[in-house]
């Protein structure tokens, strides 16, 4: 435990010194503030913020995770020759680099929400959006780790794979599901649609946002089915549970690869 915090602290320090985590915070600060100024505040602003978040956090998280693996290759190898458990090193590195990124998003968006008074007005919705952003950060940094470890010697492939996965999950997915529903419209498809949305963490997060704001018109097909099938509160709980599974699976997979890998 002492070892783990030692690794995490060192990573924090060196990340804070590289100024770009602070830049990332400022981007969300400016974005949220301007959305609040021009959007007039209220739930619409939170919705716009969550739309930006659903698009960019996955991309930034994955690129950040894979870049870390590629950039600190020699350093990680040196650390692996020290008398420490690979498991501890993995958690130390993962938490050490993912938590600052998570904090950057949360702090950057939280501050404008606080000074515009939205945090008090819509506290549960704000908490949900911020929490989801943090969760997505962890999920996608760990996915970046997994791809970095899988394509350890082939950076071009690793980056290419990352971009394709992001395009697929963030942009194409809902369209493909809709197309399938359109083609197989004569069959009962509710369970298929629910399974399909559970396979995409971005979709799950989107559904959670839509359920919270209760805007069926904006819900997208998977969201509407989710709402009808589970109702609002059960839907929220089910989708959250699936998202937690989405956090556990890639981190565990990354750990497994890290433990077995030849460096």
């Amino acid at each position, binding site marked *: 435990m002492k070892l783990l915090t030692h690794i995490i602290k*060192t990573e924090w320090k060196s990340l804070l010194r590289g100024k770009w985590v602070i830049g990332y915070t400022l981007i969300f600060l400016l974005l949220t503030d301007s959305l609040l100024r021009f959007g007039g505040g209220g739930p619409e602003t939170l919705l716009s913020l969550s739309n930006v978040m659903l698009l960019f956090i996955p991309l930034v998280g994955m690129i950040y995770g894979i870049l870390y693996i590629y950039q600190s290759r020699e350093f990680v190898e040196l650390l692996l*020759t020290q*008398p420490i458990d690979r498991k501890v090193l993995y958690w130390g590195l993962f938490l050490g680099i993912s938590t600052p990124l998570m904090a950057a998003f949360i702090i950057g968006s939280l501050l404008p929400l606080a000074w515009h008074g939205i945090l008090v007005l819509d506290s549960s919705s704000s908490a949900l959006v911020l929490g989801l952003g943090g969760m997505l950060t962890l999920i996608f940094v760990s996915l970046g780790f997994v791809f970095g470890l899988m394509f350890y010697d082939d950076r071009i492939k690793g980056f290419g794979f990352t971009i394709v996965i992001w395009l697929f999950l963030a942009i194409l997915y809902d369209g493909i599901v809709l197309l399938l529903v359109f083609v197989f419209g004569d069959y009962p498809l509710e369970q298929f649609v629910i399974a399909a949305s559970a396979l995409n963490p971005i979709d799950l997060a989107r559904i959670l946002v839509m359920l919270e704001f209760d805007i069926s018109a904006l819900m997208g097909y998977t969201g509407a089915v989710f709402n009808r099938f589970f109702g609002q509160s059960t839907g929220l709980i089910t989708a959250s549970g699936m998202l937690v599974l989405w956090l556990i699976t890639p981190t565990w997979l990354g750990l497994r690869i890290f433990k077995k890998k030849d460096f």
Partner: protein
Amino acid sequence: MIEIKDLKKSFGDLQVLKGMNIAIPKGQATGIVGPNGAGKTTLIKTILGLVKPDSGTLHVNGTRLNGDWLYRRDIGYMPQVARYPENMRVYELLNFIKGLRDQEAVYEQELIEQFNLQSELEKPLRTLSGGNRQKIGATLAMMFNPDILFFDEPTAGLDPRSSHKFKLRVKKEREEGKTIFITSHIMSELEQLVDHVIFILDGNIRYYGTMSDLLEHSQEDRLEAAIARLMDEPMYGTGSELKQSEETTSPLKMELA
């Protein structure tokens, strides 16, 4: 004491270690030589636990390597390429590694002075020259006073003065009874630092013994010439296979041309 029995390792279709057997007693200084891609680095990485063998056993100081990590308390490793987090400062790196190893860094000050690193301690690692980074690597390897030391191409980036100091330091470690491994392509350097040689070719150990025996056997007076001779010697096994494959590929190349 390091004992290796029938060690095999493949990366995909490529067999890198083809059943190595070797026992290295405590206190011996050994040079590991061989052409690029022969398996030197893989052998070292396997002993360090970075690479997991497909089959065979390894014992380091009586501990069998099997996912265990405590045995690395006795090992210091200086990598060939030294790259560290860019924003970290030198003293922070030293503190970081000290926090990872629950051991006293007895030689820290001594090594910093010896390698003239005092003025570099406050600098971020990205601003350091390649040679200074190498010296930091050497410091990290030796400061905990481990029994077994690995140096992978240690003097490649060092200026003559630092290289000389490094060699003096290795000689001192050797006199203290440390087990030392050095890989290098500079044979004159190995002549100064080690007395035993492991020659690896195509994943096999071709020669393991004292340097004087090797010189005597090959009737050469320099290690470089003796090793060059070992590489050229048409020998049984993998050597002849290599020749054959060269012959079969060359007509193909001509057709393509």
